[in-house]
């Protein structure tokens, strides 16, 4: 590893020469910009940064980054990233995925990467639709969604990605949206700092097949009333005048209240470091789809041993105990005999 200072870079240094080919107006552009503008601030090197993806609109992301990159097959990026991150702990491994890629065909890989706590940063662009295959409903589409493959409305219940990640024993779970660069960058920065698997759901507008899916909560005019920012150690409140807040009832239920009615002291204080994920889970259930006040920010950030490090530790212990492996010794580890 090189010990020279990290070179000063700008967005341009992190942008590849490939023409960006998302539909004009797609939310992916603002996410790409947020990432490209954030990286110069993270003190990381281009040659030590890898963007990995599966299939879908979001999965084109690596082609636009002037870093190492791998555009793989549908749903498998977390598995591929696991092999890379565990053998190359010196690298920063980002996984860019979508709701179909991560939660449908790749659901198994996602939950296992999260429970293992592999050091990867997963950005899941959730647009609640299949874009690249031209508009079928996805595992996050609301019930009754009318699409090309569900002309009479979909009948399957959607996933709540934050709930799913929490249920999969994730150590870092956050949510942000494509309309707020500052919030995205702060969330991505936190995810990148996390020592283990970080999962970020990014609400992303697909203006071609599902335009306005999040407009009710992310639009500039409604945002303050519809997004509930989570800040560690602070009472959970929102609204233009911070006039609303979240309380926990005696039966454990979370409820949105007027602060004036309950008093500030009654508000739930957000604790992203709680060992028990129960409260984070309850927060993730506060909104039943992007039509109600919805928490954004870091739901959970806890420490747990990182998978690759544990693998490495077992190797070190074995080498300390038995010495570095020697082939001639290996061959004779059972019983051998000699013929003269």
């Amino acid at each position, binding site marked *: 590893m090189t010990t020279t200072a990290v070179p000063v870079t700008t967005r341009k240094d992190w942008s590849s020469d490939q023409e960006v080919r998302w539909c004009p107006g797609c939310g992916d552009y603002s996410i790409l910009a947020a990432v490209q503008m954030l990286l110069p601030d993270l003190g990381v090197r281009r040659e030590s940064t890898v963007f990995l993806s599966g299939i879908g609109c979001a999965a084109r992301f690596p082609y636009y980054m002037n*870093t190492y990159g791998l555009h793989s097959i549908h749903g498998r990026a977390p598995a*591929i990233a696991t092999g890379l991150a565990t053998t190359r702990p010196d*690298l920063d491994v980002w996984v860019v995925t979508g709701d179909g890629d991560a939660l449908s065909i790749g659901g198994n890989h996602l939950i296992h990467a999260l429970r293992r706590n592999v050091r990867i940063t997963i950005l899941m662009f959730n647009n609640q639709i299949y874009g690249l295959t031209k508009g079928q409903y996805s595992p996050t589409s609301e019930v009754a969604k009318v699409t090309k493959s569900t002309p009479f409305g979909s009948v399957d219940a959607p996933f709540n990605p934050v709930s799913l990640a929490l249920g999969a024993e994730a150590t870092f779970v956050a949510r942000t949206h494509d309309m707020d660069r500052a919030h995205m960058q702060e969330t991505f920065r936190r995810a990148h700092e996390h020592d283990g698997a970080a999962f970020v759901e990014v609400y992303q507008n697909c203006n071609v097949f599902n335009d306005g899916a999040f407009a009710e909560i992310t639009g500039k005019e409604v945002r303050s009333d519809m997004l509930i920012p989570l800040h560690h150690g602070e009472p959970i409140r929102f609204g233009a005048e911070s006039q609303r807040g979240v309380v926990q009832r005696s039966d454990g239920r979370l409820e949105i209240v007027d602060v004036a009615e309950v008093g500030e002291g009654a508000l739930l204080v957000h604790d992203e470091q709680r060992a028990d994920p129960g409260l984070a889970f309850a927060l993730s259930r506060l909104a039943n789809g992007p039509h109600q006040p919805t928490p954004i920010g870091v739901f959970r950030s806890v420490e747990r041993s990182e998978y690759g490090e544990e693998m490495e530790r077992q190797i070190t212990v074995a080498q300390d105990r038995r010495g570095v492996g020697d082939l001639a010794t290996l061959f004779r580890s059972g019983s051998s005999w000699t013929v003269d």
Partner: protein
Amino acid sequence: MSTTEDHPTEQIDQVVVRFAGDSGDGMQLTGDRFTSMSAVLGNDMATFPDFPAEIRAPAGTMAGVSAFQVHISDHDILTPGDAPNVLVAMNPAALRANLGIMPKGSTLIVNADAFDDRSLTKAGYQENPLTDHSLSAFTVYEVPMTSITQEVCKEAGVKPRDAERSKNFFALGLVSWLYTRPIDPTIEWITKRFADHPQVGEANTRALRAGYDFGETAELFESNYEVRPAHFEPGEYVNITGNTALAWGLIAAARQAGLPLFLGSYPITPASDILHELSRRKEFGVRTFQAEDEIAGVGAAIGAAFGGALGVTTTSGPGLDLKSEAIGLAINLELPLLIVDVQRGGPSTGLPTKTEQADLLQAMYGRHGEAPLPIVAAKTPSHCFAAAIEATRLAVKYRTPVILLSDGYLANGAEPWRLPEVADLPVIEPNFATEPNHTEADGSSAYWPYVRDPETLARPWAPPGVPGLEHRIGGLEKADGSGNVSYDGLNHEQMVHLRAAKVAGIARDIPLTALDDPSGAAEMLVIGWGSTYGAILAGVKRMRARRGRDVAHIHLTHLNPFPADLGEILARYDKILVPELNGGQLWRMLRAEFLVDATALSKMQGTPFRPVEIEEAILEMLGGTT
């Protein structure tokens, strides 16, 4: 070995013993110990464990019968034997399940205590075969193994129920006496193995001695036998199974390439022992990842390869199905990757514990699009070591996934292996890219991931970490050279040709056909691949030695590409026989590639060929009489 007056010791040149009992009777262990003792005596040997798919089928039933066959000899042997000379049957089901393969005149040693009405019924016997004269063609020894074992264990304070479990050691002791194997090494082994359960160890030791003494003192056997040491090349030997040899081959290959070894794998019979063995060897820096599924296993191996490791995934047929898409990705990425397929009977779940060679066409063609890759096949258990190194060499040098074919027979079968000198192992050079390889129109330098080596057509391998070599690759078609995404039709056709030519060109980098045709004018040719090596060679040798027929033999290790001169050699023979444990897969490939009128010899019974089957097929093709 001692020869008592009552029991003269006869010299024999070889013997095939088959231990059979219930899954819970410890037959694999018994066979394994007998093998180890024979190794110490310097015999050549080959083993064939044959166990049911169920972990514990109902006790005493045919479905639960587990067997271990071992062939020991004073000369070079190639297979676990045509047919056993001796069957040790621990219960009626074991007798019934194995009697069909026992030749007339062979010996049956049965645990007489187990032939009660209940056990007979469970095994499906109407009459007791020990009393109804149905075994009159065999030499039958009825030995009360359970009761003697219980008797000798009583003094050690072991309860009869627990003592009953030591009866396999009684059988081992008896057979050890019969074939003059020393039992002391096994006693030592028992002491070590059961150090934490001294009472169990004591019971096993007593049972073992009782079995040995029974042979010596009971007036049952006329003589015992000695199999003299075989002639081996001087050197140091171990007895090794295919799965262990393969695991060690991967460790050695990674080391010879200077690459960290990463295994992504999902448990599957009969490949899991490779995962187990590599998991134990962490001092070599081996990373083993037990993935959530077969796809993640290969996916993680691809990720590791992208990062500059030797990425390996191990599996069997059903897993290979699941990995197909990812293997196609690796073909497009042109990254080194090793896929080990330990074949078993299919389709679907098929026969998980039984051997077959029916994945060759899948390895060859089982991916969408034009997706060629090199295929290497191991031919004996110990050859799995060299085959793993060769497969790695090709993967690394040509930046391609390679499928290494083993099978259930090689995986679990064992043979003596002369240890190689570490210094003689081939060196594999990863040749990582270190600097830009392209000059842009404006004079600036760039790294192009798909600029090819003119000789091998391999692309450079540039794991992350090197400034200036940042690049993006993926499953979409790439422009020749720059590696940028390209949907251009002519470029695609060019890339298809380049990928195919790269794999085909490997023919220049592998040995020419090893033709075994002593006279150079054989009447016919037998050609095989993989685990049929021993049986085919034994059949061919018998044709030459016993029947004076001139038969040539080729055994392929490289299935794609074939050796460069193979077509020219095949053209020399009018009669070509292709024995395979499948419906004729190499046979199809040879006919398609070389337009030869070859004949298939198929066997799909979950068991290896016996040399006699090869012999008969050759004879039939040559027109019968000698």
